[in-house]
């Protein structure tokens, strides 16, 4: 994380003679480049299905060693213009599907994760415009930065269920001190876009709009956070064509994702827990004589019911022994949508070893019990499975 000064920083500073000498030091244009990465090998004990880490992947780890499941690299640049203005960009290289073709997964595909201009109105209030993180979870904004995480892979029961990670729009962050506590608020509004792979289908889901609200309190070693992300997804014809419905229909799914997070870290003991729920409006109530989405909903038994209704949580706890951090985590995902009753739980044990001040080695073994196919890529999505996963990797930041 090196700071480089442009030669004309002096010129810029000179243009701001009205500011005090101390402020002028900040007023020049500076840029910082920093990076992060995780290189991890992952395998599971089954060869006829694959464990994936995101709903937008249609390839995961099977019984051969896979480097794409848990690996990713990021590069971030921040340009500070002074007077509270800055520009932040982050490139993320990760496995993702690059088009609607189911087999178009590419490892280490580079995408623009964030690109936003920020204006600090005061030292506690920031406004952002551009592509920003969609803070659905407690650790959304640093989930990809393995080095900042205690484990190798955050529990998929919660973190694997939200395919939207960024939005294009505006966002405000406000922080105030209240005695020993720090209170933060975040609000954002914009558009989001992602692809979801489900079985042999790719669902392209551009949103009409996405909004996010969250509040958090940090007090000494505690952090408590509550947040909500709402989105409106129009069920367009191309989306439904993948599900076999070709007649144009009009239906907008309203998705509400609520998250509650608690973190305790006193330097020795660490506890992380999150709970989340997803609610959606009901599908249209209709008769079988109708066509389009109405027919589809009726056939699937969805008429008058939401497409998804989910509850998920995890609890993780660890204890530091010097540079070693063993951690145990348990997660659960339950869906009682009209189409199926899906359950998914996992228990994992991870070990982090800090080899240097910017490098950590990690290993994680997990036992996944699933009735739900959506976290696996599998030929038979109805088949309940028990899978053991193993991953080893190295995290770094610079």
């Amino acid at each position, binding site marked *: 994380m090196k700071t480089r000064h442009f030669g004309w920083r002096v010129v810029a500073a000179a243009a701001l003679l009205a500011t005090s000498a101390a402020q002028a030091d900040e007023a020049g244009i500076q840029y910082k480049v920093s990076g992060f990465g995780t290189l991890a090998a992952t395998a599971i004990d089954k060869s006829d299905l694959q464990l994936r880490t995101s709903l937008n992947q249609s390839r995961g780890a099977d019984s051969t060693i896979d480097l794409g499941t848990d690996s990713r690299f990021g590069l971030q640049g921040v340009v500070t213009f002074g007077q509270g203005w800055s520009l932040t960009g*982050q490139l993320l290289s990760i496995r993702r599907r690059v088009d609607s073709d189911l087999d178009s997964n590419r490892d280490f595909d580079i995408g623009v994760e964030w690109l936003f201009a920020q204006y600090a109105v005061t030292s506690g209030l920031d406004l952002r415009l551009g592509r920003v993180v969609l803070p659905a979870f407690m650790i959304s*904004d*640093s989930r990809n*930065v393995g*080095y900042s*995480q205690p484990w190798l892979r955050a529990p998929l029961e919660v973190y694997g269920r939200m395919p939207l990670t960024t939005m294009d729009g505006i966002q405000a962050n406000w*922080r105030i001190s209240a005695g020993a506590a720090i209170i933060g608020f975040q609000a954002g509004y914009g558009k989001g876009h992602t692809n979801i792979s489900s079985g042999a289908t790719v669902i392209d889901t551009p949103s009409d709009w996405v909004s996010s609200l969250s509040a958090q309190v940090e007090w000494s070693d505690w952090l408590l956070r509550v947040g909500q992300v709402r989105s409106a997804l129009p069920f367009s014809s191309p989306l439904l064509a993948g599900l076999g419905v070709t007649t144009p229909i009009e239906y907008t799914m309203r998705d509400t994702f609520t998250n509650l997070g608690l973190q305790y870290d006193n*330097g020795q003991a660490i506890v992380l827990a999150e709970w989340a729920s997803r609610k959606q409006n009901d599908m249209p109530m209709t008769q079988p004589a109708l066509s389009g989405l109405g027919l589809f909903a009726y056939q699937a038994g969805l008429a008058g019911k939401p497409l998804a209704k989910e509850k998920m949580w995890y609890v993780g706890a660890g204890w530091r022994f010097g540079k070693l951090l063993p951690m145990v985590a348990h997660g659960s995902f339950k869906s009682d949508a009209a189409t199926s009753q899906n359950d998914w739980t996992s228990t994992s044990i991870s070990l982090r070893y*800090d080899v240097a001040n910017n490098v950590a080695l990690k290993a994680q073994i997990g036992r996944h019990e699933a009735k739900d196919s959506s976290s696996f890529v599998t030929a038979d999505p109805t088949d309940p499975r028990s899978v053991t996963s193993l991953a080893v990797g190295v995290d770094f930041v610079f």
Partner: protein
Amino acid sequence: MRAKFIRTACVAAGLSLGAVTAWAQVAVVMGASAAPLTKDQVANLYLGRSFDLKPLDLPEASPLREQFYKKATDRDLSQVKATWSRIVFSGKGQPPKELPDAAAVKKAVAADPKAVGYIDKGSVDGSVKVVLTLD
């Protein structure tokens, strides 16, 4: 023989230096008009929870840095780095500015009423005010 003696002497000197620094008191310092800070306030600043003041750091190689973080935040440097990487890569802020030594820290806090630094208690002089002492 001579080489071995030098090596032993160096190790002994290193050990005694380590012993001395292990017991050093760390003084958190600000400009002359500053009010005292609590340990929680200092921890909040140096762990990126609060951005009310401008924290200053010593180089990673400085033994005082490790002691300061242990005493003020109960965290070792790897944990502090992990905490800051969360903040940096969420675009929320940048880690404390690093200065080369105590003299530079004193000069910086004397010049800016919002700047906070930490130095060895023995390096404190009239140019700065001790806002918190960490034993």
